[in-house]
């Protein structure tokens, strides 16, 4: 039994070298994907697993499948990457707290279920079936053979899957879409608003930070001609974050004789 399994697994030398170099690497990457803390590292390792799978496909003469695997999955992992950045945060690590009750038993059951499904599927496809072999399958070329199957025998499944994907994409768009309740302000509107606003002093726009101040950093308020700090010169975002220095200390100290003049 083991001997037959080994004989089946035997391949010609260059392919064998490729396999024994890449297989451990991809398994390590797959395990690492589960164990690393940062979500982005995890996505990267996933990309590596996908690329090494693609190389295996190519080594097994499934050239089209291999290349498409790279095109599709690198794009998909890129999307995942974006999702991580948008939803989880740029630099976040996994939290190990379990928020859902009975998470572990559910996960184990699901894993066993998927594993069982895979084993039964692969078993049904291989046991008591005689393989045609590549030479017959690729008789009219690999791509042409695949195209023929996809667009004749499996055209229904193919179309159903594409309809499903389009529906999912549209659903995501509908959920994420928000209606505009007013038209955008044009530059003209904003300019008019500045000039008709309460303070004409702001008509030319707000002062930039750090102008005539001791430092020209974005978190240092500009100084007005009388030496006082212009609070409006600092971005509101910085202020809300608490990243701004107290503007008081940058105000000009009135010297002794100036104050005595008054």
């Amino acid at each position: 039994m083991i001997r037959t399994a080994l004989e089946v697994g035997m391949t010609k030398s260059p392919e064998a070298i490729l396999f024994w170099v890449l297989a451990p690497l991809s398994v390590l990457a797959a395990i690492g994907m589960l164990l690393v803390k940062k979500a982005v590292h995890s996505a990267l390792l996933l990309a590596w697993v996908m690329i090494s799978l693609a190389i295996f496909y190519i080594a097994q003469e499934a050239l089209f499948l291999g290349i498409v695997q790279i095109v599709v999955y690198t794009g998909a992992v890129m999307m995942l990457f974006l999702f991580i950045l948008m939803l989880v945060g740029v630099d976040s690590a996994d939290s190990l707290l379990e928020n859902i009750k009975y998470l572990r038993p559910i996960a184990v059951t699901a894993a066993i279920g998927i594993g069982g499904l895979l084993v039964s599927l692969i078993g049904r496809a291989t046991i008591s079936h005689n393989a045609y072999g590549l030479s017959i399958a690729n008789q009219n070329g690999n791509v042409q053979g695949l195209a023929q199957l996809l667009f004749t025998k499996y055209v229904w499944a193919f179309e159903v899957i594409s309809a499903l994907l389009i529906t999912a994409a549209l659903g995501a768009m509908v959920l994420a879409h928000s209606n505009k309740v007013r038209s955008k302000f044009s530059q003209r509107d904003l300019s008019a608003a500045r000039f008709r606003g309460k303070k004409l002093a702001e008509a030319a726009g707000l002062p930039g930070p750090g102008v005539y101040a001791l430092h020209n950093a974005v978190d240092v308020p500009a100084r007005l001609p009388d030496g006082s700090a212009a609070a409006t010169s600092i971005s509101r975002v910085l202020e809300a974050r608490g990243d701004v220095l107290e503007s008081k200390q940058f105000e000009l100290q009135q010297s002794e004789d100036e104050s005595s003049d008054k």
Partner: protein
Amino acid sequence: MINSKGMVAQLLGQDPGWVIALKGLLIFIFCVVLTIMAVWGERRIVARMQMRLGPNRVGIFGIIQGLADGVKLALKEDLIPKTADKIVFIIAPIISATTCFMAFAVIPLTGEVSFFGHKTVMQLTDLPVGVLYVLAIASVGVYGIVLAGWSSGSTYPLLGGLRSSAQVISYEVAMALSLVAVFIYAGSMSTSDIVVAQDRWWYAVILFPSFAIYCISMVGETNRAPFDLAEAEGELVGGFHTEYSSLKFALFFLAEYINILAVSSLATTLFLGGYRAFPGLGFTETWLGGWFTLFWFFAKVLIFFFVFVWLRGTLPRLRYDQFMQFGWKTLIPVSLAWILIVSTLRVMSDQGAPQYLIFGFAFAVVLIYLVISNYSDNAKAKLATDYKNFTPENPEFPIPISNRTEQVIQIRDEAKK
């Protein structure tokens, strides 16, 4: 002469190991040298466009300025920011620089030549899905930019990286769609077969819309002006490579220029007849034992490179939302419609449809286009007037309006009266 499909694959199958190794090495050296020359060339051309002289001190016409700059760049101090994710920070430029060379493996540089007494073509390998392979490599290469942006641990690079990933996701779709028409007409996805299939007409002529879409999306794909939003030095300092210095920065630099050459080579191969001579000059293809075809190939690639420089010297950078809108709302629908038209025509001619049917179809397409464009113009005009007459007094549901918004709305309405 190579004049039938699959011949190149056969020729390459007979290559002994040393020929393959030597070809790989030559392609590598060629790319690096060409990059150095391209940097010099770009600076000279842009300088001329801006009424300057450009680098003219180092060597004749400043020709080894690129080399001097390269050495200087490599000898600078290599900094890694404290907040950077070290491993990814180092891997990112390596990904960029290695993948950019790989595309050249499937580009046919010459016709049949004698290579140290061995009959072959200057092409490393010929895959039946060669063009898809180039696309796959390109999409891996973008990881370099995105990861560089993320791993730098600072805001501008992150924005650059995000922009670049969004850019690639949307423009690669348009790029791949533009190639479909070529596949349909050539009946193959192998680069050498596509060159063979263009022996009568270049696809740039008969598939002009595809060519135009490819040319636009290739500029987006390589992050060059006017689509250089990922580095946007006016907005994001240097974008994804802000934190990079020394050799790591040099790798990104190298990758950018080799990518330009790679997409230009692909455009040459797919649309301009590859290494074949310009129309009417076919007799030159046998000069120098076939090596003269290399000249034609590089003449075409350099034309593309010149256009890249020209664009950079002429056009301002696009705004990000306009760029995205253009990709999704113009390029992709147009290429989808074009694919439908091309495949219909192809099926018609394959099934031997009579001429009047084909002309009728073409006429119908033009008619439909006119109707749709008229309709969309009207819709746009209506939308514009709707926006103008829109008042926020009675929105369908309550919305938070800040003081500032209210103030602007009020002043705008007063101005209207």
